[in-house]
């Protein structure tokens, strides 16, 4: 009975891991995600695939870290990956906001120069 439940969980994990992998590949293939941002996701899905098709690894690692239920070790790994991804997203956003700020500032300065040029041109035409 216990084994059967473990088996079902394993199938579910295999399915989930491959769906995740498939989604990531689809995003990369259709240029919806840049390679540099996909690396950590690929690492995530690769780890999940390894865990699901080779659960003995989870049992061993769970034993070493004294995690009570092996599946908790899977959750722990997932949480760590999610935290890493979230942190990297915050860092990436900070970089973007700096760049957007610079763009807007130079845009404002350029707009002023164009406005001045147009005024000068209008004066000349008179």
């Amino acid at each position: 009975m216990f084994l059967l439940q473990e088996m079902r969980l394993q199938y579910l994990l295999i399915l989930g891991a491959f769906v995740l992998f498939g989604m990531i590949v689809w995003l990369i293939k259709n240029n919806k995600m840049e390679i540099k941002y996909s690396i950590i996701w690929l690492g995530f899905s690769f780890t999940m695939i390894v865990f699901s098709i080779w659960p003995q690894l989870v049992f061993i690692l769970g034993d070493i870290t004294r995690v009570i239920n092996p599946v908790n070790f899977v959750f722990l790994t997932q949480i760590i990956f999610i935290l890493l991804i979230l942190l990297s997203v915050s860092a990436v956003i900070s970089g973007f906001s700096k760049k957007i700020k610079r763009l807007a500032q130079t845009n404002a300065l350029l707009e002023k120069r164009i406005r001045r040029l147009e005024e000068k041109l209008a004066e000349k035409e008179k």
Partner: protein
Amino acid sequence: MKTLVIIPCYNEQENIEKTVAALKENAPWADYLVINDCSTDASLEILRQKGINFLSNPINLGIGATVQAGYMYARDKGYDIAVQMDGDGQHNPRYLRDVCRPIMDGSADMCIGSRFINKEGFQSSFMRRLGINIISTLIFVLTGHKVKDVTSGYRACDRKLIEFFADNYADDYPEPEAIISCILNGFTVREVPVKMEERQGGVSSIRSLKSAYYMIKVCLSLIVHRIQASGKAVK
């Protein structure tokens, strides 16, 4: 010396024209630049119609990035002195020369117009003063320099600082951060007494709901500035 007065403007339709007129009257020797931070009221229309010299941000950037655009302009146009002045009528242009004097005679790189030296004019609320005291004390602890009016937006700086600020300026609530990064980068900061008016209309950028966030953000970034500076010193 070529002087530029930078006036950030966000939803100041009631004040901006008066502010610019008072500046032209009291300090005709200085150029000015109003920077409209994507106001949602009629500020931009007023700036256009009254022939006021202005920049206009395409998106709302916040006070820090708005003022920074002014420093970029001052850098590109070769100004020797840049003065920040609020667009809401709080800062009287009669004190412009007082604020600029330490820069003109070279005794300071940055000069802040402080309402707490002679304790004249509008002194702002008790809570606000408490916050200012905390930030001021924190800057003293971190740098050993005492600056009283750390949130004053009435400040002049020289050519070296114009170039520095054009590249480095905080985004939101930038006034205390600008002071500490000046001190830590070896610039001299001075204060001169000014009398400030109570703001004449519009909404201050620091509202009561945001004040907790303000204090946390400012204190944290001051400490980060200190850590970054000591990291540089070790290298």
